[in-house]
Each structure stands twice: as structure tokens, then as C-alpha cells.
């Protein structure tokens, strides 16, 4: 797993980070201008703009972004939704255009207290597996890439490791839930 950590560090400094920086530099001022017009602060702008980028990157990763929608229109549209949600302003005070009305914040974006507690628990007991699953599901590495980057002998052994991680963490959630009822909904 140390191999994994170092690969991740190497990867973080490559193209993805350049994309982040360019998008940020280009769109943050536009978002900040709008937040300011709503009497928001620099901190508000920083917080919701970053959340909008998180949602945008997930859309891109899942190929869910409509090709006709520009990144700028999408990110600024989501920013407005996040603003409405954060400040519980009624939608009538923020005007949304036709495209913006079709956008929405992912259903699980605001985690339940149970998910937050569960993550604390998993971070203290199974961080390596958590990292492997994160990379596989959310960085969208193929099993082939993942096995070569992480130094597994074969795609097969990386796949088995992934399922073992799912099993290990699932079992610990189960044990914890049954003994403390901590994470039961």
C-alpha cells in the first residue's frame, strides 16, 4: 500500500492538477462576482465554488454531462443551486435560466451523520482499503491500470484484493452496527 501512496502523489501533480488550476483561475472570479452580488463573502464563494467543481468532476467522470452544456454554464448553474441550498433562500430570489432549472445537486451530496460517523470509523480501521476503493470507484482507474500502478502481479490479484477490501470493510461495518447500533438508520 505504500507503493499506492507514492503513485498517488505522483499522479496528483500531473495533468489533473493543471486542469483544476486552469478551471479555478478562469471561473472562480465569475462565481465570486455572483456570490458578491448576493451579499456573500469570499469564504462563501470559496466553499460553494469548490463544491460545484467536485460535482462537475463527478459528472465528467461518469460521462453524464450533456455535450451541449459548457463547463462554465454547468459550474455556475450548480453554484446557484448550492447557494440556494446553503442559505435556504427561496428559489424565487435567485433567478435560474432554463438550463439551470434542469440541474440538481447529487442526492447524497450532503452526507448523513451516519455516513460521517461511519467514515471516521473506517478511516481509523481500514484506511488502505478505503484508499484502494476510492481510487477504483472514483478515480476511475481500470483494474489493469490499477494493478500495474500498485505493483500487483496481475489484474486478477488486484481484482481479488478489491473484493477482499469490500468484504473486510463490509464485515467491520456489520459487526460494529450489530454491537453498537451506531450506524443504523
Amino acid at each position, binding site marked *: 500500500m505504500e507503493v499506492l501512496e507514492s503513485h498517488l502523489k505522483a499522479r*496528483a501533480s500531473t495533468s489533473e*492538477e493543471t486542469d*483544476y*488550476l486552469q478551471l*479555478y*483561475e478562469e471561473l*472562480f*472570479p465569475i462565481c*465570486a*462576482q455572483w456570490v*458578491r452580488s448576493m451579499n456573500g*463573502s*469570499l469564504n462563501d464563494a*470559496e466553499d460553494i465554488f*469548490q*463544491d460545484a*467543481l*467536485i460535482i462537475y*468532476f463527478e459528472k465528467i467522470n461518469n460521462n453524464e454531462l450533456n455535450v451541449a452544456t459548457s463547463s462554465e454554464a454547468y459550474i455556475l448553474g450548480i453554484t446557484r443551486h448550492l447557494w440556494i441550498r446553503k442559505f435556504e433562500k427561496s428559489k424565487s430570489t435567485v433567478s435560474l435560466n432554463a438550463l439551470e432549472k434542469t440541474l440538481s445537486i447529487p442526492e*447524497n*451530496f450532503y*452526507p448523513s451523520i*451516519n*455516513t*460521517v460517523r*461511519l*467514515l471516521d470509523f*473506517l*478511516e481509523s480501521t481500514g484506511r488502505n482499503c*478505503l484508499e484502494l*476503493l*476510492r481510487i477504483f*470507484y*472514483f*478515480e476511475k482507474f481500470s483494474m489493469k491500470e490499477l494493478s500495474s500502478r500498485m505493483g500487483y502481479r496481475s489484474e486478477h490479484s488486484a481484482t*481479488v484484493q478489491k*473484493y*477482499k477490501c*469490500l*468484504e473486510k*470493510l*463490509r464485515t467491520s*461495518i*456489520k459487526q460494529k*452496527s450489530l454491537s453498537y447500533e451506531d*450506524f443504523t438508520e
Partner: protein
Amino acid sequence: MRTSLNEIKEAERFLTNKMLEEESLVFQARMITDPLLRLNVSFQKRLMDAVQLYHRRKVKHNLQSVHNELLTSSEKSGFQQLVHNIFHL
């Protein structure tokens, strides 16, 4: 692969919408009749939610570094001026 790993694999395909419609319906029917399967799938769903939260926190952390870099790097004075003007800092 052991039986339990196969069950995990199936649950994964179900939770990540990789199943064909028919297959998914059969799986849902099995969950109705098999309480243990249902419970295991619900734990796996919670695990996926926790992994996603872990990922979002990581991305947020990276974005905060980008933000700080843009606001402090001497090469980005144009950006800094723009932000200062917007908020009358």
C-alpha cells in the same frame, strides 16, 4: 473465488448500476426473499457512500490547496487583484 466474494461482486454490480434490467429485477427479488442478502447489500451501500464521502473530502482538500496557491503565488497577481476588487478587500 469464494461464495461470499461472489455475492459481494454481484452486490457491487447492482449498486453501481452495471446489471441489465432483467438481472437487476431478479436480484431485487432475491433480496426480498433473502433477509441476509438484503442486509449485506445495505451494508455495502453504506460502505460505498462512505467511500464517496472520503473521495469528496480529498478533492475538496486539493481544491483548497489550489485556492491558496492562486491567492499567494507571485505569478498570479492578476487573479489576486480581481478577487480583491470583487470583495473590496
